[in-house]
């Protein structure tokens, strides 16, 4: 079934296909290569957006104009948000790890629609490039914020249509990826792998896929409506023509709230894989985690109004959305209990993946608890549109999904590239990242409560101490990120050769060579055991 000798077969990196050279990558339909294409693009765009963020932090170092005026600042936070949300955080985990590992973990040779997969990638690249182009073409970078609120997005004289189109194209890519994965999970599981024998990362991808498929079209049509507003003055959102700007907010958040579950569910799926492996025992509460994932996906459709507590919606609406927001936190909490319980009594090995997974729990919980604060209407009225919100979502998205992504890279790097990275550098980078992250975002909770607004390039002097600490944290974090990526790049050439199962994992990807061969499996495996079976010795660690 599996061969742990990594020398006999050609890996997917070397496999000679229909095309030669660069074309063998650009025209590939191998899910593993497509995953790497996404991976490299995500890293590049992430650093672009991170540097944009860093520039904002430099501006906020002192009150008044520091290095840029307000128009530039507005353009910066807009493009930072667009790239981070639509180009990085929403696509990355399904496109990179979903693509690479979903088929393998299911015992399949590829996804259901490999050519569609490649098409998704090119849609993604097109959307990302359009987004970047919006900075340079004609009328100047968009300054509406990534949320494109009307009436300003209908009136702003900047390149809003570029950005709207970019988001539309990226959304289409997301839909097709989700569709591909749903069908893959339904149709391509190996013999013997019933639904409840599937590991939890595929389950997470499954829940995510449904959100991608059902929620994204709404933002698609909404973006088209804003374009129609700008170009045709269609009037849906223009009060002078009988329309309603708050209607835009409803439509926008009906997608954008479920979108955050697209961001976090795969991240949770990754750490759910890491904890059993590094505790050498089955995940605690497989069914509970499974149902929680589905519950989060489902309930997440009904909480969008919590972004609109101050928009003038009715008392009843505010009550309803607040209640459901509190409710949707419960499955996440259940997962945290399960992760910690998985570790309890286990044989813990604090390698970099586990280090990142544990800090994921810590940071995600801070983000989550402050989300509850925001979900309470009375408290939200005080902190809406302040730095408190900025700190909250960065803890959840960056501290949560971001750190889980780092965990995933450190976990699956040996499998993807066939090399081991340097543990010491990885650990040091972790420490710098963790410290920098908290320095960067924690003060923003405090100045937010004290009244520091968000999306402002200037502020009252009493907030400066917090802003200075935050800016320093930003630079510390950036250093850690660079060090972490340096480790990855360097280890491609200089890392030790990775065995097929360096961590002692028991899911299918660890039963094939590192890196995997082109078709993943010699013969499609037949599944006999439950998903996290640490019983026999067919999956022992080999170092």
């Amino acid at each position: 079934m599996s061969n742990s000798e990594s020398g006999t077969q050609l890996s997917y990196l070397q496999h000679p296909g229909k095309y030669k050279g660069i074309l063998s990558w650009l025209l590939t339909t191998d899910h593993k290569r497509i995953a790497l294409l996404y991976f490299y693009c995500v890293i590049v765009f992430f650093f672009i957006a991170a540097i944009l963020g860093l520039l904002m932090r430099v501006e906020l170092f002192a009150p008044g104009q520091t290095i840029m005026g307000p128009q530039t600042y507005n353009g910066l936070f807009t493009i930072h948000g667009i790239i981070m949300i639509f180009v990085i955080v929403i696509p990355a985990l399904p496109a990179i790890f979903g693509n690479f590992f979903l088929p393998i973990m299911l015992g399949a040779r590829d996804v259901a629609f490999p050519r569609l997969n490649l098409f998704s990638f090119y849609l993604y690249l097109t959307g990302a490039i359009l987004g970047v182009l919006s900075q340079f073409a004609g009328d100047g970078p968009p300054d509406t914020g990534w949320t494109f609120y009307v009436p300003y997005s209908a009136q702003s004289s900047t390149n809003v249509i570029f950005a709207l189109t970019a988001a539309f194209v990226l959304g289409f890519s997301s839909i097709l990826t989700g569709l591909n994965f749903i069908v893959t999970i339904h149709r391509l599981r190996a013999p013997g792998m019933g639904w409840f024998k599937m590991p939890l990362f595929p389950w997470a991808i499954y829940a995510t896929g449904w959100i991608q498929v059902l929620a994204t079209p709404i933002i698609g049509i909404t973006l088209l409506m804003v374009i129609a507003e700008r170009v045709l003055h269609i009037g849906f959102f223009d009060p002078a023509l009988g329309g309603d700007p708050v209607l835009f907010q409803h439509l926008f958040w009906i997608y954008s709230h479920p979108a955050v579950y697209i961001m976090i569910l795969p991240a949770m799926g990754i750490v759910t894989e890491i904890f059993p492996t590094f505790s050498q025992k089955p995940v605690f509460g497989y069914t509970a985690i499974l149902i929680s994932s589905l519950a989060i996906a489902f309930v997440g459709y009904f909480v969008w109004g919590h972004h609109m507590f101050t928009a003038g919606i009715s008392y009843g609406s505010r009550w309803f959305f607040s209640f459901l927001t509190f409710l949707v936190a419960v499955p996440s909490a259940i997962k945290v209990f399960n992760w910690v319980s998985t570790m309890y009594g286990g044989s813990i090995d604090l390698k970099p993946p586990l280090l990142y997974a544990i800090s994921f729990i810590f940071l995600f919980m801070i983000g989550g608890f402050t989300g509850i604060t925001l979900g309470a209407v009375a408290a939200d009225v005080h902190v809406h549109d302040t730095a408190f919100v900025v700190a909250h979502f960065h803890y959840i998205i960056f501290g949560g999904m971001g750190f889980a992504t780092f965990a995933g890279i450190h976990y699956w790097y040996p499998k993807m590239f066939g090399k081991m990275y340097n543990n010491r550098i990885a650990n040091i980078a972790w420490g710098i990242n963790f410290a920098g992250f908290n320095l960067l975002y924690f003060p923003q909770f405090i100045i937010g409560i004290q009244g520091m607004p968000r999306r402002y390039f200037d502020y009252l002097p009493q907030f400066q101490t917090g802003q200075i600490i935050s800016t320093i944290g930003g630079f510390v974090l950036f250093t850690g990120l660079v060090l972490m990526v340096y480790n990855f790049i360097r280890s491609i050439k200089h890392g030790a050769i990775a065995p097929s199962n360096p961590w002692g994992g028991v899911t299918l990807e660890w039963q094939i060579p590192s890196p995997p061969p082109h078709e993943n499996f010699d013969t499609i495996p037949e599944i006999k055991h439950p998903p996290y079976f640490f019983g026999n010795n067919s999956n022992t660690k080999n170092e």
Partner: protein
Amino acid sequence: MTHPDNNSDHMDSQTGKFGMWIFLFTELFLFGGLFLVYAVFRANYSEDFHKAARELNAFIGTLNTVFLLVSSMTVAMSLTAIQKKQKNLALFLVLTTLFLAALFMLNKYFEWSHKFHFKLYPGSEVLKNLARGELLFFGLYFMMTGLHALHVLVGMVLLSINIVKIQTRRITSQNYLLLENSALYWHLVDLIWIFLFPLLYLIT
């Protein structure tokens, strides 16, 4: 569950159809956003909507509905034909479907030209002088029928590809997934129109 070898040249038809169904759901949600906006504004401006709908020609609308319904039937029949190895019949039926689609688009062209002639288009002075609900009705009319027409065009392209592939025997009684999926797509286009028609033409 069958577990086909993942050979992308010869995809298992169940898988292919499932994918298409999911895609159709996304299209439903895409139009769903517009239906939602329609519902909101109709609730706010019901009188104006009634008044504005009288500008639309219910006869042409009905004609278009008939065209699409019949075309759905012909494309479904073409599927049966190809399964029964009746290549020429299948070809004829797909061509008929395409022809009916073209008639639909022709009607649409006349309808829209008529409106443009009276300066009833988004952003015009005439529209600005109307009641707000009427203005919004026309905005919705153009956006919904416009987006739908776009999908009809895409469908026509798909049907054309099918015609070529049937002719060159790349669609056969053993391998007709493309035709089947195109037929499904066409049914969706028809279904959306069946919702659009009463909401826009029949609410006077």
